[in-house]
């Protein structure tokens, strides 16, 4: 039996932090407020823009949320990952547009670097410097060894793709290849010879871009040949954070749809009377609870530094991705005609979930890797 704490390491501090986060989002990020903010232009060929509330970001920074998982040695609070997971879950429940979760992902990679440069960057994150990962190639490979960027004589060339919240961030953690292998490098958003091209994306609650490097100055975070190892070490944390985001969004969709099913009357009965609605909603709940517990378990095992962290994290992401797609589709379906309209908030969460569903690998991808881990590579 595991030596890990029964409560997933979810102690008083973590609970207080989670509750304050929940209150913060209730006070500042009601669904109607977010919708008015990010969904003001339904036009399908709308100009690509990045909408978010910088003041809220400042408040978050002052609340210390960016410092939560930064090691104390690097100027952070050094709380366990479950604390960040709790915040990520609440952020998902609010469909919160911000670079917070991207910055948590960058924090995980920087922490795994363990270099002075990385620690300095971590300190800046604690101070509010939004930072995101640029470690994916144009083919959308999640493999730590794949990158379209190269580094020669300390300058970056090539490109990085599917960079999350790029326009909201001040810095990028870029993976680039040289003859010695893949290394990690810190790039300022304002750096010379760096093009940040925003993508037109479905999710209204985040932005995404691809970066083009034409000889960009950078700071080495992990030496060539170390980068892929570092990313692999951080990946379980990244997967766990995205899972938490999905779990939060899934719970919002479940509760919102349940409320609708209680009030909406069809055939002289509330919708929720019908088992064709009730039982799928129960199945959504079952999947949410599976994903939620697996996510906490993954975070807890990462905090405990125990063996199966990758296994636990990929189980969580696989369950969360499948749950998210299911929860989102049932929410639209059971909201009926209104759920299919732009004015109904369901689509905000639907789109955020469909984005997270594939981010860092969908459920099939996770299970394929799990099978190799657990069963062994197929002959």
């Amino acid at each position, binding site marked *: 039996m595991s030596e890990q704490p029964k409560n997933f390491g979810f102690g008083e501090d973590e609970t207080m932090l989670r509750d304050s986060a929940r209150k913060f989002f209730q006070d500042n990020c009601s669904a109607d407020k977010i919708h008015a903010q990010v969904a003001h232009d339904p036009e399908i060929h709308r100009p*690509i823009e990045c909408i978010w509330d910088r003041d809220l970001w400042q408040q978050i920074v002052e609340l210390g949320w960016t410092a939560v998982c930064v090691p104390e040695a690097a100027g952070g609070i050094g709380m366990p990952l479950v604390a960040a997971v709790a915040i990520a879950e609440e952020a998902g429940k609010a469909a919160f547009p911000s670079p917070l979760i991207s910055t948590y992902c960058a924090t995980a990679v920087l922490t795994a670097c363990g270099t002075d440069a990385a620690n300095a960057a971590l300190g800046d994150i604690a101070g509010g410097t939004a930072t995101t990962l640029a470690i994916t190639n144009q083919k959308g490979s999640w493999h730590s060894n*794949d990158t379209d960027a190269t580094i020669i004589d300390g300058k970056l060339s090539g490109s990085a793709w599917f960079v999350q919240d790029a326009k909201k961030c001040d810095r990028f953690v870029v993976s680039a290849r040289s003859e010695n292998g893949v290394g990690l490098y810190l790039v300022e958003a304002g750096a010379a010879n760096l093009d940040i091209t925003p*993508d037109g994306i479905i999710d209204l609650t985040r932005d995404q871009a691809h970066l083009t490097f034409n000889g960009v100055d950078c700071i080495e975070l992990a030496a060539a040949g170390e980068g892929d190892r570092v990313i692999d070490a951080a990946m379980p944390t990244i997967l766990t954070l995205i899972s938490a985001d999905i779990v939060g969004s899934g719970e919002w969709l479940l509760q919102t749809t349940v409320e609708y099913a209680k009030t909406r*009357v069809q055939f*002289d009965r509330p919708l929720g009377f019908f088992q064709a609605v009730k039982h799928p909603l129960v199945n959504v709940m079952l999947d949410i609870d599976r994903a939620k517990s697996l996510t906490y378990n993954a975070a807890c095992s990462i905090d405990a530094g125990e063996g199966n962290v990758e296994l636990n994290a990929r189980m969580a992401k696989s369950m969360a991705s499948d749950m998210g797609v299911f929860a989102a589709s049932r929410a639209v*379906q059971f909201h009926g*005609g209104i759920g299919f309209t732009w004015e109904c908030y369901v689509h905000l969460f639907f789109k955020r979930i469909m984005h997270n569903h594939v981010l860092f690998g969908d459920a*099939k991808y996770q299970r394929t890797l799990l099978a190799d881990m657990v069963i062994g590579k197929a002959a």
Partner: protein
Amino acid sequence: MSEADRKDTPEQAEFRQHCRDWLAANHPGRPPVRLPQGALELSDPEALHWLQDWQKSAYDAGLIGCDYPAACGGGGQEGFQAIANQEMMQAKTPYLPNIIGMGMAAPTILFHAQDEVKAELLPRLLSGEDIWCQGFSEPGAGSDLANQQTFAERDGDNWVINGHKVWTSLAHFAEWMILLCRTSKDDKYNGLSYFVVPIKDNLDKGVTVRPLIKMTGETGFNEVIFDNVVVNDRYRLDEVGAGWKVAMTTLAHERGAGPMVTPASGGMALEEDESAQTSSVHALIDLARQQERNGKTAADDPLIRDDLMKMMIRQAAFGQNSRRMGVPALTDHPMRIPLQFKLVATELAQDLQQIAYEVEGAASSLYVNDDNSPANGRWTLAYMNSFGVTIAAGANEVQRNILGERVLGLPKSK
């Protein structure tokens, strides 16, 4: 179509030849503008008029409405429409724009309207000159069609209509609407009546048509508000209070289960590229061949391959069910297959389009307004739009009730 040929009577064979000759000479060619996947999504007037011209020419040639009485502007034949449809499909023609008119309004008018109303409305309906829309759904009446709140009050020879209809496709182009509404508050079902309403003529007389925005950001559906709109009693179909019965005629034909064969052309690829169609498994297979997923070709992933094969099998089964429906000896219950079509077709498309997200991997995040989006973001857009049809025309939950009750004979779930 050799088998079909073999079955034709001499008259039918002659008509089939006429269709082929005419189509060979009068195929409209490719559209001047991009057409949406289906007529219900028409928003560009230019596209509409081009399609109306096509319908008119096919109508004038006798390929549309052939089975309707001559007195209603039809061909007065029997079993000809199916032949014309086959030949128009064979000739890969564009679809017909007046889809609600022909599929739902026309048979309802034919079976329930006064003769002079038939003669007044059906010719311009069949020719496509008058576009029709359907006024059934309301904010409070989704799948529960009988829960109509729109009210028509008798006023001498006229009715005064007040209410609010939603999800009215094509209303922004429509001259006419088939309207189900309430004429008595005492009885849920027997308090309904059915009208045909000239909505375009009443745009300045109490009718307001407003576009509804879908979760994709597209328009297409409308809401239609009735504010003391006056309609003459001659436009009532069947008796006062018989609206539910009349609506059943409409729905039966919508589900392909009515006696009249709906005029239908089609078969023309809407894009230069066949594989652009988001309803085709083979289009998704083509996408999977080109698309990188998690850095590898999607079509090489055994789990994606299995999903694609599941979809291919369901798509093939759908086609073979339509084939079997025509063989009474092989169908125990006449409604068993016809009543499945809407449910099966819409869920097949939805599941197919959901798989596209996994096929596209990270790139599924890109929308139609991004140059790098796979297949121009067509698949992810189609997935969101798919809920429009799994919800519309009686949510699929209701379709399952109908099948369980009418075909399997299980007790009503109400």
